[in-house]
């Protein structure tokens, strides 16, 4: 067979990989750290509720909630290159689905699949027609959803503008845990499952198809990838993730109100995934921290966002991954 092409790269060696996220090559490295690190992180995450006082624990739980939402958003935005301004609304619909079921006496495990199912239906209903046109239309359609959902909730949902307080999942007595510890562990379990599923999906045919469509839809189509069906499917599942996250939000806070799910939430989620790093699973985790702790929209948070993007155009994950190469270059 023919000679190996002269590329200037030593094939098979671990050359520098400055590109990350949507520009990275081998996305098998969705979690680029060894298994032991992953195990340590898991052990640490399980230990958190026994080490951290209740209020910070509540915040850490919220971070995990947003991780689920951002994992979903990243499928569409990071990999698919489509902008969704409606994930806050899907989040809110999931949260309200859970809250209404809980307040009507349903056991809390039922609320999770219900929230996912409702979000899937909405995601399909709005995504399917929107993605046929182009990425910008999806942004506009989802923006319309984000604008329409809070007033609809105010009008139709029980509690109206005042919001709806619900009971949070209680720890079974045999565990001897506090309720907030139990909720944390529940949310952690869902987030871990969501994380694992998403990781294998982005490494699968579906993940590759989304990236291929973003790069060159015409060429991708000739390989047998149906552009609008693939994007609509990804969008619907992305909405499922947002809906599940909304349900987890209700479990965590025990209170939902229309004002929590305005278009600001959608934009904050989008900003979070961009700051964390598009197209990377760890970007979703960092983005979730940003979403949880970002101060209320205003001058300070706006300037902070601009500053972060100026320093780290590929998000925090990109910055961290490029750091070794950068420092190595400085060495004499």
């Amino acid at each position, binding site marked *: 067979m023919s000679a190996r092409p002269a590329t200037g790269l030593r094939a098979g060696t671990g050359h520098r990989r400055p590109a990350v996220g949507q520009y990275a*090559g*081998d996305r098998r490295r969705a979690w680029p750290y060894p298994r032991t690190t992953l195990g340590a992180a898991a052990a640490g995450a399980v230990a958190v509720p026994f080490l951290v006082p209740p209020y910070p624990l509540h915040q850490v739980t919220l971070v995990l909630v947003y991780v689920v939402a951002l994992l979903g958003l990243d499928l569409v935005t990071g990999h698919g290159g489509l902008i969704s301004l409606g994930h806050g609304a899907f989040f809110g619909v999931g949260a309200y689905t859970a809250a209404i079921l809980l307040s009507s006496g349903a056991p809390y495990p039922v609320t999770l699949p219900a929230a996912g199912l409702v979000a899937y239906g909405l995601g399909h209903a709005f995504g399917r027609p929107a993605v046929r046109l182009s990425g910008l239309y999806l942004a506009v359609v989802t923006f319309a959803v984000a604008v329409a959902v809070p007033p609809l909730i105010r009008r139709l949902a029980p509690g109206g503008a005042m919001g709806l307080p619900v009971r949070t999942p209680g720890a079974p007595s045999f565990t001897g845990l506090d309720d907030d510890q139990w909720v944390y562990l529940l949310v952690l379990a869902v987030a871990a499952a969501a994380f694992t599923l998403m990781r294998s999906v982005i490494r699968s045919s579906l993940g590759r198809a989304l990236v291929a469509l973003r790069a060159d839809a015409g060429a991708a189509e000739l390989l047998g990838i149906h552009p609008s069906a693939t994007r609509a499917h990804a969008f619907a*599942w992305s909405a499922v993730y947002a809906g599940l996250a909304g349900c987890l939000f209700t479990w965590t806070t025990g209170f939902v109100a229309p004002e929590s799910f305005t278009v600001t939430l959608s934009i904050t989620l989008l900003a979070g995934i961009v700051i964390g790093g598009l197209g990377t699973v760890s970007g979703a985790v960092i983005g979730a921290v940003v979403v949880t702790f970002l101060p209320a929209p205003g001058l300070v948070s706006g300037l902070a966002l601009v500053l972060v993007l100026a320093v780290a155009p590929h998000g925090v994950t990109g910055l961290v991954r490029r750091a070794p190469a950068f420092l190595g270059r400085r060495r004499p």
Partner: protein
Amino acid sequence: MVPMLEIGRLTVRFGGVTALDAVGLVVGPGEVVGLIGPNGAGKSTLFDCVTRRRDPDDGVIRFAGQDVLARPPHLVAGTGIARTFQHPAVFPGLSVRENVMTGAHRFGAAGFWRAAFARDGERRLRAHADRVLDLFGLLGLGDHPAAGLPHGVLKRVEIARAVAAEPRLLLLDEPAGGLGPEEALALSGLIRDLHRATGLTVVVVEHHMEFVLGLCGRIVCLDLGQKIADGPTHVVRRDPAVIAACLGAR
């Protein structure tokens, strides 16, 4: 025997310009056909019609007896047609191996739920992609991002991706474009080996005449949207009209 590709009266107009004027072409199974002609002769437009990127104004296209024009573009691959582009349309966000795996997309699971649990399928796709990469001498670059590779390698990656789809008809649009003489020779050897091993039907659009003369058993020449010659390589290369249209002009 049913021809692999059968094109009749294919006509494409861009405004007042006729890019293809009632072109007919029949390619038998296992043939390697060179499609030549000066720039603007309608060669790529013909490929675009066969792969459903462009709707012809008139004409029929049959692939192995099936009407191609009745299918949407994403189902063309399923019938067994694959193509490459003049400018390599490699996906920069994916690694070289993932690009080739995308070529085999139709063999994988694409639903979210099934994709999440498609470990075995992924392993098979990966092995399939690695076999194709090995064939093209690209195995060592499998994990490299497709962005930032030299043009010649990208050409090769794109052909590997098309081959990974296991087509019966392979349409190559200027595979040797931008390649050095050695690279072009190696590529031509590769395509010949592939053809010999699989009995694949190949149609090559190419300006590089040595490449075409060395590879193709038959040459079709287009000029200004019309077919001016069609026959065995040794005949067409001496055809005065062909020489005037493309060979002489070089």
